[in-house]
């Protein structure tokens, strides 16, 4: 059986190997450059307070590398997963394969097993590379927990790759046609990724809210994920940072003090803050602390792996009960 899988997928395996090697070459070359650049920034800035650490480290097309590494395994997983059953049914080769002395269940176990394993391996290699590559950027911006960064590092890309493959296999088995299955799986993958990253991920654990002096500032320690930050009034009115949002919400006396308004005379922002403080305003930040980075990675990976397992279970039921 394993030999059949190898014979059927050796071309795809070669393509995946070439893509992985190319990605590795680019990521390694750029990653070493980034690392030395970041190192020199750190040396220059040691004991030099005026030095800017904010000089942009990552720029241009290469800044999008992690996204490619997220998208490519998912797309390939769907492109190669969807025909796993569907193409055999379309070309009737299922009648050859399923007429051998191997049950359909075992046939699917071996085929889907190897492909899911391959997806996990590709996702694992890619994420190892991008996680390493993102090191200086993480250090500079403390952004590893932020959407778009969280999704391309750590262990979650493995979950995405496995899920994409499972979704492709299940869609192909249910629709029995490759092209519609690819369309359904791509759509399903994109929608689920958006829903989870934009609406569900922030609720994996109850976010922490910290209040601080309205004139002060607060940055959570380490690679925290700040969900919302701004001012909150005594009546509980919450306003996001940015004077455009804040201004209409302020008490009239404080509004008059804001520099730039006609009524403001020799006032500074500090006088606005003092006014706000006097009226009971506080600053707040709602965030997921840096210590939750790995638990969140675990939860998100777990969700995708469980969904993949459910899809594969459905595939087995369909393969066993539906006529060939």
């Amino acid at each position, binding site marked *: *059986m394993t030999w059949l899988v190898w014979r059927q997928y050796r071309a795809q395996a070669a393509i995946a190997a070439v893509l992985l090697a190319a990605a590795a070459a680019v990521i390694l070359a750029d990653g070493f450059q980034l690392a030395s650049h970041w190192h020199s920034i750190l040396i220059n800035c040691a004991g030099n307070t005026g030095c800017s650490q904010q000089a942009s480290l990552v720029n241009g097309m290469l800044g999008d590398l992690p996204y490619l590494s997220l998208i490519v395994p998912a797309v390939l997983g769907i492109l190669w997963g969807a025909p796993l059953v569907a193409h055999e049914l379309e070309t009737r080769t299922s009648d*050859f394969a399923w007429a051998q002395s191997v049950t359909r269940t075992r046939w699917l176990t071996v085929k889907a097993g190897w492909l899911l394993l391959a997806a996990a391996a590709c996702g694992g290699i890619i994420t190892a590379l991008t996680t390493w590559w993102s090191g200086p950027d993480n250090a500079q911006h403390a952004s590893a927990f932020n959407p778009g960064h969280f999704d391309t590092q750590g262990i979650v890309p493995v979950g995405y790759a496995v899920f994409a493959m499972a979704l492709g296999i299940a869609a192909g088995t249910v629709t029995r046609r490759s092209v519609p299955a690819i369309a359904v799986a791509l759509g399903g993958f994109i929608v689920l990724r958006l829903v989870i990253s934009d609406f569900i991920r922030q609720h994996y654990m109850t976010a922490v809210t910290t209040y601080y002096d309205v004139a002060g500032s607060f940055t959570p320690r380490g690679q925290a994920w700040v969900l919302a930050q701004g001012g909150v009034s005594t009546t509980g009115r919450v306003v996001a940072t940015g004077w455009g949002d804040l201004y209409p919400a302020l008490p009239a006396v404080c509004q008059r003090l804001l520099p730039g308004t006609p009524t403001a005379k020799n006032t500074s922002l500090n006088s606005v803050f003092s006014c706000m403080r006097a009226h009971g305003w506080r600053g707040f930040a709602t965030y997921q602390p840096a210590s939750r980075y790995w638990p969140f990675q675990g939860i998100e990976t777990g969700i995708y792996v469980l969904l993949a397992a459910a899809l594969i279970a459905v595939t087995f039921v369909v393969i066993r009960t539906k*006529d060939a």
Partner: protein
Amino acid sequence: MSLAIETHELSKRYRRVSALTECTVAVPEGRISALVGPNGAGKTTLLRLLAGLAGPTGGTASVLGGAPRQDPAFLAEIGFLAQEIPLYRRFTAEDHIRIGAHMNPRWDAALVRTRLTELRIPLDQRVGTLSGGQRAQVALALTLAKRPRLLLLDEPVAALDPLARRNFLTTLTAAMADADGDLTVVLSSHLVTDLERVCDHIVLLAGSRVQLCGDIDTLLAEHKFLVGPRKDTAPIERTHQVVHTVTTARQSTLLIRLNGPVTDPSYQAEDVSLEELVLAYMGADEAAAGKHLTTVGEGS
């Protein structure tokens, strides 16, 4: 003699269409059985049910002593070759031989290589580039390499030219001889002349139902054409089963299934060929369905 296949009121419905209706047949071991019938009669459905590739919606089937099932031991006994000659078009015959070796407990790779070499079919060429006849030979050889005890072949010669068809059937009869009684074949086709050469048993399906099932020689001996003057057939029908009637102005020809000797001296009995028998039973079904008139010529 034990039965390789025994079905009892086996039925298969697809939503509102009945593909096979209460099919009861028996095929003894060691026979080569012709599964005949018009297109859409249920031949493919019956073969797929017997191979375990589809499940019945009613009735039971016993194949080599058990219900068709997803079980390696059962699958190892069955050789199934579908109508479309399913092979991986981008793989060579040699690739298929290796796949078979990995997926079957008994696998006679030498048999495939020998037969294909005899037929001068290249082993190292993608099967998609072979001719239809060559592909059918590759598929048959691969099916035989499994050393099955029951071979289910769904219209394998339909797409072949006469020479390729003869080669295919020769391969089949050689395999029967090699197996020495331990191989049963069911071969579906609508080319009765081909089947007549190789088959000794027949299952006739029409309109999703079994019309005829049995040993060909016995069935031919049991059926006669009665040619005689046109008259009331009721006396004949009291003793015999009238399958089909053709009436002209003065003469009637009745195909009957004998139930004892024909006593009416005004009729002359004539032998029936397999093709005539098959066509009569297919026509009988159409008459029952009211699609066709069985009477031609003027008069009633």
